[in-house]
């Protein structure tokens, strides 16, 4: 009756003496878990370092011209020397990505809520959302630049559009796929529609929402960069175009590193938030 499997990372709760106090066995288990955790952290670092070394070796052995592909060291030195330019260009891109992320997800959440309460709204507008989603980003960009001008607005709009769809689909599902018996329970308890929404549907949708947000985090950066390809003078996207035209491949690669690092940090922040807010779910998934 009192057996329960505790996965690592679960906060220990008082289990009323359900577990035997075998200290040495427990210590062995904990150290094994710690080893696994370190392996999980170290292996990707080793793999990335290995790939960079391989890249450097290929460039050196085959004597690749710097404008075709730079050596990792050339890229590293540009990262240091031109750090100010790179960071100055990251600021607009990051702003656009973050604002687009917020806007796109917010609108998606609102529309998903409308879909859950009105089947007619979903039947009318979901196909429209699918159609907009089928337009490639590179095709959306010029349209939005024409519509919204040459400032930050079209980039924010592109980032928002790119985030919108995954969140709409996931959020609709998360709000709707509630355990039917939990819904019956709420009815037996005479819960109001507002209580059912906040205490059941919203809580139920959070794991779905975070899956979408993790996709959206990196997608929004891509959206902002693609938006900057068209007639922009600043931003990671503009820098990419500029470096390409000047055959300045070390700068091109350095720009990509900066953009990707930002994406990765953004993704990690969302993952961290998910772990913190959805402890019950991450523990269950393990």
């Amino acid at each position, binding site marked *: 009756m009192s057996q329960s499997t505790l996965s690592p990372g679960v906060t220990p709760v008082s289990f009323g003496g359900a577990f035997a106090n075998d200290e040495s066995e427990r210590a062995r288990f904990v150290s094994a878990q710690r080893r696994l955790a370190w392996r999980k952290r170290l292996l990707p670092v080793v793999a990335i370092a290995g790939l960079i070394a391989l890249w450097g070796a290929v460039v050196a052995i085959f004597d690749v011209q710097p404008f075709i592909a730079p050596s990792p060291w050339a890229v590293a030195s540009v990262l240091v020397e031109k750090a100010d330019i790179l960071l100055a260009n990251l600021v607009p891109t990051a702003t656009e990505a973050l604002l687009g992320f917020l806007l796109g997800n917010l609108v998606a959440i609102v529309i998903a809520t409308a879909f859950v309460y009105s089947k007619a709204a979903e039947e009318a507008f979901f196909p429209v959302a699918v159609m907009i989603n089928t337009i490639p980003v590179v095709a959306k960009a010029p349209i939005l630049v024409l519509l919204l001008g040459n400032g930050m607005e079209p980039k924010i709009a592109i980032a928002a559009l790119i985030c919108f769809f995954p969140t709409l689909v996931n959020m609709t599902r998360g709000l709707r796929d509630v355990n039917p018996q939990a819904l019956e329970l709420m009815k037996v308890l005479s819960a109001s529609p507002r*209580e059912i929404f906040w205490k059941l549907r919203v809580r139920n949708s959070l794991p779905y929402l975070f899956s979408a947000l993790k996709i959206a985090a990196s997608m929004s950066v891509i959206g902002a960069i693609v938006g900057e390809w068209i007639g922009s003078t600043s931003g990671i996207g503009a820098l990419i175009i500029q470096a390409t035209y000047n055959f300045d491949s070390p700068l091109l690669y350095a720009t990509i590193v900066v953009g990707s690092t930002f994406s990765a940090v953004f993704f990690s922040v969302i993952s961290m938030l998910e772990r913190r807010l959805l402890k019950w779910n991450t523990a269950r998934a393990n």
Partner: protein
Amino acid sequence: MLNTMSFSAQIPLSLAASAVPAVECQGVTVRFTTERGTVTALENIDLTVPQGSFLSLLGPSGCGKSTLLRVVADLIAPTSGIVRVNGEAPEVARQNREIGFVFQDAALLPWRTALENVLLPLEVGGGARRSNNRDPRELLALVGLSGWEDAYPHELSGGMRQRVSIARALVSGPKLLLMDEPFGALDEITRDRLNEELLQVWESTGTTILFVTHSIYEAAFLGQEVLLLAARPGRVRELVDVNLPSPRRLPQRETAEFVELAGHLRRVLETC
């Protein structure tokens, strides 16, 4: 865990003495329309459940026993017929928190700890204002889960989850407890133990219990009466009086009386 089952019952005397039945059904019929046509889930059910009694609802699948429970809980409106819970319409009884419901899969909210799940009825539907509310920690102790208040459902076994859901159903102090195959998914040993513990909860709270099951032994062991339902359409086949001494304990299932009773139920069930 069995020894934790001590607490003083708080049964309103007026209720125990009252002649108003806990549940009354007159000619209850439920029909569903599906793509394949109209299905009669329940046909002309007449039923009177006295206050404080324990009634088992037994029948083959498709006999509408879960539907009957949902009609009483105001989750399904009957197509025709009258239903009364404590002399009131089921809707009124539901709004007054006179009904507790225990679902087949426990239906705990996975993001809430055991204690938070038990607290849910007090947080919604104006549940905090009720005077019959009971102490959630005390109820968790009653179902043998002291020390597990902060555990999440995924950390609990199936039997423990169902104990939490029983505590949750009792937290508003309902006069009527509806249980829809609550132990159906549990292993036999856990089920036996929970059966015995449920009887102790019933004895200590004085709540009327309607218990849906498809286990003959469970129905006979728990109920003061067993209502046998036949399928397609769901209708009352027989109301069997269970004459077993109380308090009931598991070894009683080996007595000649019990074996005979179970045999009778099985024979009737085979013709349902």
